[in-house]
């Protein structure tokens, strides 16, 4: 196993997921399989190949930039339309306590 159940619990905590014991065991299995699959890629010889963050790598310098021009924002009504609780144009969330 390349990944432990403790790793799974930690990742779940960071992702705000509550997993049951069964799920932790299953996730460990699944993720281990995924990582093994990814390991396959490491078999390729990448000597001299620059690490790539993005496939659009060779675009012109300016090709992906926009001009600093305003576009009409959403109305406040639209902006908060999907929120569970709102008031006075604000989103309201349960009192936040720093973790």
């Amino acid at each position, binding site marked *: 196993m390349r990944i432990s159940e403790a790793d799974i619990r930690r990742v779940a905590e960071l992702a705000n997921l509550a997993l049951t014991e069964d799920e932790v065991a299953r996730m460990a299995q699944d993720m281990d399989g995924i990582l093994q699959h990814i390991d396959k890629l490491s078999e390729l010889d990448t000597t001299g190949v620059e690490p790539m963050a993005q496939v659009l790598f060779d675009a012109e310098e300016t090709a992906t*930039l926009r001009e600093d021009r305003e576009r009409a924002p959403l109305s406040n009504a639209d902006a908060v339309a999907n929120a569970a609780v709102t008031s006075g144009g604000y989103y309201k969330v349960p009192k936040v306590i720093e973790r």
Partner: protein
Amino acid sequence: MEALATPEMIAKYEPVIGLEVHVQLATNTKIFCGCPTGFGAAPNSNVCPVCLGLPGALPVLNRQAVELAIEASLALNCTVNSKSIFARKNYFYPDLPKGYQISQFDQPLAEHGFVEVSVRGETKRIGVTRVHMEDDAGKSLHEGFKDSDRYTYVDLNRSGTPLIEIVSEPDIRTSDEAHAYLTEIKQVMQYLGVSTCDMEKGQLRCDANVSVRLKGAEKFGTKAEVKNLNSFRFLKMALDHEIARQVALLESGGRVVQETRLYDPDADETISMRSKESAHDYRYFPEPDLAPLRISEVWMARIRERMPELPASRRQRFIESYGLREYDAHVLTATRPMSEYFEAVVAASGDARAAANWVMGDLAALLKQEGKEIEDSPIAAERLGQLVKLIGEGKINGKLAKDIFPKMVETGDDPDTIMRREGLTAISDEGALGKIIDEVIAANPKQVEQYKSGKQQVIGFLVGQAMKASRGQADPATMNRMLKDKL
């Protein structure tokens, strides 16, 4: 409140401080969308699918934000990387609707710069580790609503505002150096027009990494991160407090815990927010929705070309070409409008020293009294220059100039007009002055007697009377000399 260390204890230690400074870039629109960046709009009214983090919305980088960030980096003597990469910094908080901040991680925009600061006459170089671009989060309001005990209110107008983060090396050793460093950064950003740096509007924010070590020790101590240093005064107070807290801990046999602490200015103390050891793991990875940022030499050269003279070199130039003292040069370059005003007064008067005295003296007092900045000065620089010139030409003396100055504010007229209208020209004709002196001597026989019997200080009274009789139009030094001759 915990015990703090005594000055004797603190003297045994050396603080090691690094600052992380966030600067809001002065663009019209947000970094990844076209929403306006204005301050004070109604809540959640400057938002769109991109800055609300709605599914499927895609960020597109603002060219102006990049250019301002490059200007800032060059001004901080950084090497701008020809390729940098955006990364996602993942964490959960209600004012971060995407669930991640778009920042830069292992390949930032710029690196390896420095800032020179001057503290008590000593110049010191403080390294700038990196400058990177990122988007701001929204705003959480924890207080101020009737149900604030149960709810946090969220306004996402600020979400997506363009920022640069400037990270310093741990080169700072005192709270005064930290203050000077932040001052220099603010000045440079304002000169460039990269940011207005209004701390009250959150356009300039500062966090500090603080540790202490015994003097002479090589190893750094464990550091704590202090947040909420959002005024120059708080910065100094919070750092001094944190240094004293850490020294007290070590002196009493304890140890410093690596954690984030929040400065509370009301209580003048720092409070532990969270322990860094467990809470955070940002799981950075390259932002798949943005192409790497490539900056060509040509683009950079174009930006470099249009950059204005920066405060440090302007200060140097003022000292060298105008013969100003270092302190005066600092005051007169504090802001770009201030330095431009001063230079306009010099140009109109031809006398830099006198111009400096007037700008830092009477004009500064006037602005303070009226609560105005120099860019809104009631007296135009050219007018003040004319006044200084009239003194230099001997047409008026300093006393008359001080009478004309408030009349310039009152009437908005130029000094020459006021001088002529009010007959306030200096009397340099010795015949006319002699007549005044004769009158003063005749009118004050008692004082004249006292002077003649050896009471030298009475001359001051007589000069005063003569000045009064001349309506201030005579030169007191000439008056003094002529009176003495006559007596």
